[in-house]
């Protein structure tokens, strides 16, 4: 007695929208996961359709991280929430000096979210993950009622491996160490702000969102044990990253504004909004602190990598009980680069 298999209808990606049923564990959910996520991420772990991925044990120490992505707008010049959620988590692993190996992705989707946008985000994640060589091996999907989320939220976790001889940590900066940045500051934040409602302006700036583990591998190969701290200056920008390191290492910084790369359009947008590029977010840049004698070698290695070609040595670590970040301004004066207070909002006055 053969029963005919029901005809499986494809999701109407062009016109369809996510409904609560797509998160409730039934056929609709299986179809959404299959047609959108598995299609985009495509690998053996996902094809096995289990609730967990079984991975071979890795040599060295394991590094693990997790991060949530809630960016608005979801699509911006140079990227989208999907690629960002891959790059951000890869970078969090890479900043420890580790090699990222696997990612997980969890989606919280608002009822009514267009399939087409979800597919575009998933495809972008898949491309980012393949380009970085770090597969998304397990995931989860939830749907919440309309109004309970801003389109889609993504949470990614990542696992990486760290060779025994590498030990980077935010408390390891020592007076005399050199401070390097891998490129221009503020690109991501300005790209995002240019698309915010009630702020819109046109600027040919793309988000710098990028995976940094390749650059980090080259840096470790060049400078190895001389590297002390690495940090990606995301929210709060370079100012927040340096202030955090100053506090955790109980040191201060002496940096020079003229040595900090900032693109002219980013500088102009910041003038126009009353913002300071040092406080604006980056998603594909890093700050590195290393022993002074290794600085030139490290800088050369960074500049040899496409993501570090505008790398610059911006100053050095100093002894300072107040943990101040002091900057010689491009104008010739001096000032403190303090923590950001509150969120950085555009000023009119």
């Amino acid at each position: 007695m053969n029963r005919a298999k029901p005809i499986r209808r494809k999701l109407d990606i062009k016109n369809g929208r996510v409904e609560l049923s797509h998160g409730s564990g039934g056929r609709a959910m299986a179809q959404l996961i299959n047609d959108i996520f598995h299609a985009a991420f495509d690998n053996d772990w996902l094809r096995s359709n289990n609730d967990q991925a079984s991975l071979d044990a890795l040599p060295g120490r394991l590094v693990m991280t997790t991060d949530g992505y809630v960016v608005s707008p979801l699509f911006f010049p140079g990227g989208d929430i999907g690629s960002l959620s891959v790059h951000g988590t890869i970078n969090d692993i890479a900043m420890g000096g580790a090699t990222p190996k696997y990612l997980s992705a969890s989606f919280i989707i608002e009822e009514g979210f267009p399939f087409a946008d979800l597919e575009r985000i998933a495809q972008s994640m898949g491309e980012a993950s393949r380009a970085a060589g770090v597969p998304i091996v397990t995931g989860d999907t939830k749907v919440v009622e309309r109004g309970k989320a801003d389109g889609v939220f993504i949470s990614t976790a990542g696992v990486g491996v760290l060779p025994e001889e590498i030990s980077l940590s935010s408390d390891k900066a020592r007076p005399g160490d050199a401070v390097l940045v891998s490129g221009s500051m503020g690109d991501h934040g300005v790209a995002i702000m240019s698309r915010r409602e009630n702020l819109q302006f046109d600027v040919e700036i793309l988000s710098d969102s990028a995976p940094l583990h390749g650059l980090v591998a080259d840096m470790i190969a060049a400078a190895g044990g001389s590297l002390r701290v690495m940090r990606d200056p995301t929210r709060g920008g370079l100012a927040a990253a340096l202030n955090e390191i100053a506090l955790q290492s109980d040191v201060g910084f002496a940096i020079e504004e003229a040595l900090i790369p900032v693109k002219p359009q980013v500088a102009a947008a910041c003038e126009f909004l009353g913002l300071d590029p040092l406080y604006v977010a980056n998603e594909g840049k890093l700050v590195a602190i290393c022993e002074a004698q290794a600085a030139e070698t490290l800088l050369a290695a960074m500049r040899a990598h496409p993501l570090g070609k505008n790398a610059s040595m911006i100053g050095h670590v100093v002894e300072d009980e107040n943990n101040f970040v002091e900057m010689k301004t491009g104008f010739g004066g001096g000032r403190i680069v303090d923590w950001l207070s509150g969120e950085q909002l555009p000023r009119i006055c």
Partner: protein
Amino acid sequence: MCLAIPAKVTELLGDDMARIDMDGVSKVINVALVEDLSLGDFVVVHVGYALSRIDPEEAELTLSLLREAALVGNAS
């Protein structure tokens, strides 16, 4: 107070609106407050409005006074 920056008028759009540019950042603003605006003029922009036109001759004069004062200062 009163954050305002100089920007170049790149397009007159009619209805008192114009497109301005500053180093690659472009925006549409209201120019009702500035008389006889021409393409290429620089205006001081504040909260989406042009407040005044920048006089290139006066700007050059101020700069030359600045350079002169700096020369005197460096010599002293």
